């Protein structure tokens, strides 16, 4: 049993903690407490939580109410930015995530960052399909509005665009545009 518990913790612990950090917007005490409680809650159910994706959704669903209930973060913003920076969260992404309510952030992180299946996102949010979809869409809109506003505050030069992280989405759209124009156009 102890072995099973350790394996479960190793398998799910880091990503669950990462999820909590993102939803708590880098507030380490809140994230650690929520993740630890969720893991502890899961302990009696290890036998039922063998499917990794269902278990991931279960754990997140267990942590979300804790995270949503938290008020003011304990860590100052600079510390939170640094904390999330270790996970690869840029300032632009931080500002976008900061524009979301905790529950929206949970939905957005589960759907757009962790890319959980819709059924698992519903489980995380404990919502039905329509509500979950609506919440994810609203979160995506608000994230994009805030992050794009942040990008717009900086001069959006060609360099700023090309210096962006290897953007699979941008590249995909550019490739599509290039194909549509018969190779006559290129952004770079």
């Amino acid at each position: 049993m102890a072995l099973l518990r350790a394996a479960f913790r190793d398998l799910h612990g880091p990503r669950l903690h990462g999820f909590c950090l993102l939803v708590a917007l880098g507030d380490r005490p809140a994230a650690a407490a929520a993740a630890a409680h969720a893991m502890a809650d899961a302990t009696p159910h290890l036998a039922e939580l063998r499917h990794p994706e269902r278990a991931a959704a279960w754990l997140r669903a267990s942590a979300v109410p804790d995270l949503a209930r938290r008020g003011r973060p304990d860590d100052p913003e600079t510390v939170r930015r640094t904390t999330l920076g270790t996970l690869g969260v840029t300032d632009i992404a931080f500002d976008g995530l900061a524009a979301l309510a905790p529950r929206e952030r949970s939905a957005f992180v589960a759907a757009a960052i962790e890319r959980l299946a819709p059924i698992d996102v519903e489980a995380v949010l404990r919502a039905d399909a329509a509500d979950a979809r609506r919440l994810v869409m609203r979160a995506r809109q608000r994230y994009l509005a805030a992050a794009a506003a942040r990008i717009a505050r900086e001069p959006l030069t060609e360099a700023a665009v090309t210096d962006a992280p290897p953007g699979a989405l941008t590249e995909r759209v550019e490739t599509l545009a290039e194909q549509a124009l018969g190779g006559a156009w290129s952004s770079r």
Partner: protein
Amino acid sequence: MSRDRSPRNDDDLHARFTAWLYGGPDGDPPRDAAVHAAHCLRCRAAMTALDHLLVIDLGRAPLPPSRGIAPRRVGALVRPRLLAATAASVVVVASMGWIGAGLLAPGLFGGATETPSTDQGVLGGFGAGGSATPGPEASFGGVTSGSGGATPATTPAVSADEAVDSATAAPATAQPIPPTPPPSVAKSSVPTAGQSRTPAPIATPTPMPSPTPTPVAASPSPSASSGPLPECADLIDNDGDGAIDFAGVNPDPECTSALDDDEAD
């Protein structure tokens, strides 16, 4: 780039591309929208914003702490709801007591004019179950009646539920024989330390209170009467977004806690 693009067509393409992004950029966007997006700065900003998410790796987080963390009690998860439900049920039971008193009055005391005494009998029984010592001084945590600035020497803090119980039981415990202070007075006058409680003088029969339970009693404040519930705990969709309150079947994401008084933000 060389295409002749009218602003109206651009707006349409922009809207279509944005809709594709909002819906979750799975699959490919329409080609004409992709061509638009490839050189629209706003679309590129939005794509860049989403691309920033791709470098996030949650697996880099450390393991959460494990020592000393016990599984949460179930009560910890449902505490706000449980508290509200408990308070509401206390109010309902109290109301039923009043109704029962009204029905029993003629049989017990042989006349409709005796209603107050009967009320007291029923509620006294109900209240006595909750308070260990039915003596006149026992209610309200030992606040001495008639002693002016009475000090509640060993008085524990009175919770909302206890306060409602005590207040309901007050007529029976404070004065064993007939008088029944109006229930509304009894409920709204939950005592605080230093407050003296002089039982109302004997005998004005009071009208039957409405049995409708009011959620106001759910307020956890010891001075239980009070103002409206916070928007995030009032069971109402205050901001009209279809989501209701902090906790519930469809909680409102804008509510940061049950004490948040603004569902809209």
